[in-house]
């Protein structure tokens, strides 16, 4: 990522402010709309899930400029998701849902450069989460 892209991600995220819960709601709508089967992977109450999503996203965006710190969050998160049965292909669906939710909530201010910055940021998150998932995945028997 470029420093400008990191700044774009952080400033656009800050603009959400009180709309953060709306983003979370919209994200899960977009996600289950794209792949209803993913719903089965969430065993917690969705309201609780939305709060956790908002907290994690906030932590990750804040850590974005410092890779070491970012990795601390994403690897652990990825390892946990592997336990839920999330696979590599699901990460693409999640990314699409996140970008769509951001576009819906941010409206016109979600312009092309902002969108690109988020796409790259998400790819970085996803790759490092997957790395964490790989090292934590239960080993299959023979």
């Amino acid at each position: 990522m470029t420093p400008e892209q990191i700044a774009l991600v952080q400033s656009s995220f800050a603009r959400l402010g009180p709309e953060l819960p709306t983003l979370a709601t919209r994200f899960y709508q977009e996600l289950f709309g794209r792949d209803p089967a993913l719903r089965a992977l969430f065993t917690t109450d969705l309201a609780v899930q939305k709060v956790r999503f908002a907290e994690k996203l906030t932590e990750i965006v804040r850590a974005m400029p410092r890779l070491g710190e970012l990795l601390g969050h994403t690897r652990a998160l990825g390892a946990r998701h592997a336990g839920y049965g999330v696979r590599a292909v699901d990460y693409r669906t999640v990314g699409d849902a996140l970008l769509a939710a951001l576009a819906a909530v941010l409206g016109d201010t979600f312009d092309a450069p902002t969108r690109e910055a988020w796409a790259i940021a998400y790819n970085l998150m996803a790759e490092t989460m997957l790395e964490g998932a790989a090292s934590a995945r239960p080993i299959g028997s023979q």
Partner: protein
Amino acid sequence: MAITLPRWPLVGRRAELEIFEKALCSGEHMGLLLHGPAGVGKTRLADECREWAAASGHPTEHVTGSQTTALLPLGAIVALLAAGLGQPGPDGQVNTVALFEETRRALHQRHHGRRVVTVADDVALLDAASLALLGYLAAQGTIFLIATVRTGDPAPDLLTGLWRDGRMERVDLEDLSRTQLDTLLHLALGGPIEAGAGREFWEVTMGNPLYVHELVLGALGSGALVERSGVWHLEDRRPATSRLLDLVGQRIGGLSAEARSVVELLALCQPLELGYLETAAPFGVLESLERAGLVTIAVADGEVRLAHPLHGEVIRAAMPRLRARAILLAEAERLETSYPAHGPAALRIAVWRLDAGGRPDPAVLVRGAYLARDAQDFRLVRRLIEAVPDEQLDAAEALLLGEALYELGVFEDAERVLALGQGLPSSEHVALRLAVTRSKNANWGLCQPETALAINAEARAIVTDQPLVEQLVAEEASILMFSGHPDRALAVLERITGHDQRTRVVRAIVGAVALAATGRTADAMTAAEAGFADHTALGDELAIAHPATHIINQVFALTEAGRLAEAERLARAGAEIVASHRVPIAQIWFAANLGRVATLQGRVATARRYYAEAAGLAQVNRFGGPRRLALSGLALAHALLGETDAAAQELAERTTVPAFGFLGPEQQLADAWTAIVSRRPRDAAQRFRSAAAQAASTGHRITESWLLHDLMRTSGEDTSARLRELAETCDSPLVAARARHAMAARARDARALSDAAGDFEALGAMLLAAEAASGAAEAFSRAGDRRAATAALRRASALGAACEGAVTPGLVREAAVPLSGREREIAMLAAEGMTSKDIAERLYLSVRTVDNHLQHAYAKLGVSNRAELARVLGNGT
């Protein structure tokens, strides 16, 4: 004691890793095929798979194909061999099946039955024996194979076959997207990069991961890529080279002398033990090479290798030959002093000595040659045995080399080597195989049947063991059959008394063709079917023809019996099978037989295509005899199409191929028909007569009928008496139809000619049917039966339309349609759908006149309404 460094990140490959995990754990797959361009990350992904497997308790191995390791069978996969090439058996042979099984058992024991996850890098460069062993171990569940194939290299048939059968997974890797590249840079550098530098990396590498790896590590090493206040900048904006190989070359070129020695050693002899390299190189050198991403050190077994196969290629290409030689010989000596002579190390030593252009242990070469032979890799057999000094060759080794030379189409050398082998002491079994191979080479390779018969007779005088003698007798019959003597071949086959299965198979191969050619097509079919059953039941290593030969013989017998549609169906099915198995000689015979069937069917353009295919394949694979046959067929097809120059050209081409007796009389159809289209009818007739006489004297009864019938067709000469005799001695309806046609033509009997057309049409011989119908029309016309004549003409035209543009003298011509100018004009308009009234208006005639002309045209053409008229005129009458 591995040096720990942050690893180069893996980006965009997680889904592929999951495919591997699933394939490994499901138990349904034997392996994974990784396909993609150079530098896309196949090796890296394979390593990740291997690490994951190791972490989950699987033993792992890594082998790499290269031009060097392919110097000796199994040279690439020494790591998997428990006991080198095994102990030689009697006659110095290596029992491949036993060696494979021994290897499987040893791996099974060593790893307590756990599947060994084995990475095979660049499998396209593996020798055939290595591939076969890997395939065997994977099929047995002893290993899980991860094979990489570079785009543009041929993926081995064995692996693509397994993949098609769903027994292997396949992943096609692509270069990274821009987003993935940004992630990779971010993770590799540990922080953000300045926008211009990021764009530069994208524009130069276009997402090729190895390229990115080389460029980033190179720029870090040279100080061009620097961090300032947490952001990476590219200081030196010299345009980076756009060629990956150049870039790798620059990186290697910048190494210190000590580091260079290490990578050179690895490029030639990898993998090497970490312990050894640490003593061989000054402290810190290995660590710096690992940090530079040039070498990898496996944690599990402490083996060091170059990080990427491309590094090895670049280093080897830049290394002076003498330096490489010195390194290889020094390593060979080091290994020789520290390892037992017969273990896997012997194989590595031999590979290095071969690579150095030196002389390895002949025993290893010979054992390698046997393995290569079992894997049908005759080029390798030749290279290995030719590295053994001549005076050290024994009879069995001369046989091995002679056979390889024969298979490679180097017939003169094969003759020399096999003759040399016959002069050496040997067992009777080896003596027999030397004789059989040498006579086969003389007959099929050198096209000298007399020499072949002499070699065979000489061997029969020496060999005493009865089953071996019978094999020689069967071989004698084979030489006679395929040098143009079916009658003598049948007589020789009578001498075989034994009932051993192998002899029965050889007898069936020769017998089926001989029986068919002499007119016993039903017996031929039975023989071919029984031969196929015996042959597939044999299933051992024997070096006789491919089992498909029996199918080819059935096609031949069906053709001779005039069962053309069945012959065509069977041949097409067979051709498809042997094409997928890549058996060139069988492909040639199927194509040639399809050409033959098409010729008889009158589908002359199709015949031209099949014969051209057969001739091309025969040329590529250096089968002189079959090529001559195919060129004859090709010239015949051209002649039947009226392509005079092309026919003459193929005949000229044919003179460059040695004479070939098999179906000799039939080959002369080409000469006769070329004379016909060149307007030399007397030469043609002369050629038909002499070829028929040759056919008669050698027992080619069905060919004789073909030749005599063609003589009748083209010159009107009465050959009916002999054709009738042939019809009585052959069981072929085609021969019978020819005889009836000739008799009807002689009697100018219109009805009988019509019947002959019906006979040919029923057999699917459309050109002959068209000619007979045309003859019938002429006879009807002569007898004054205009209406019947017109009907016959129309039939002749319809039949001729199936003949793909054939232009034989017996075919109907456009001018033969007996319409007057006005009749034709009116008929054409009516056929277009105009009413009589419209036609009358257009031509300024009365409707009544138009109708009169139309009625005449209907009568002449033998039709009764406009629809039929349209069809007849549409057919070009």
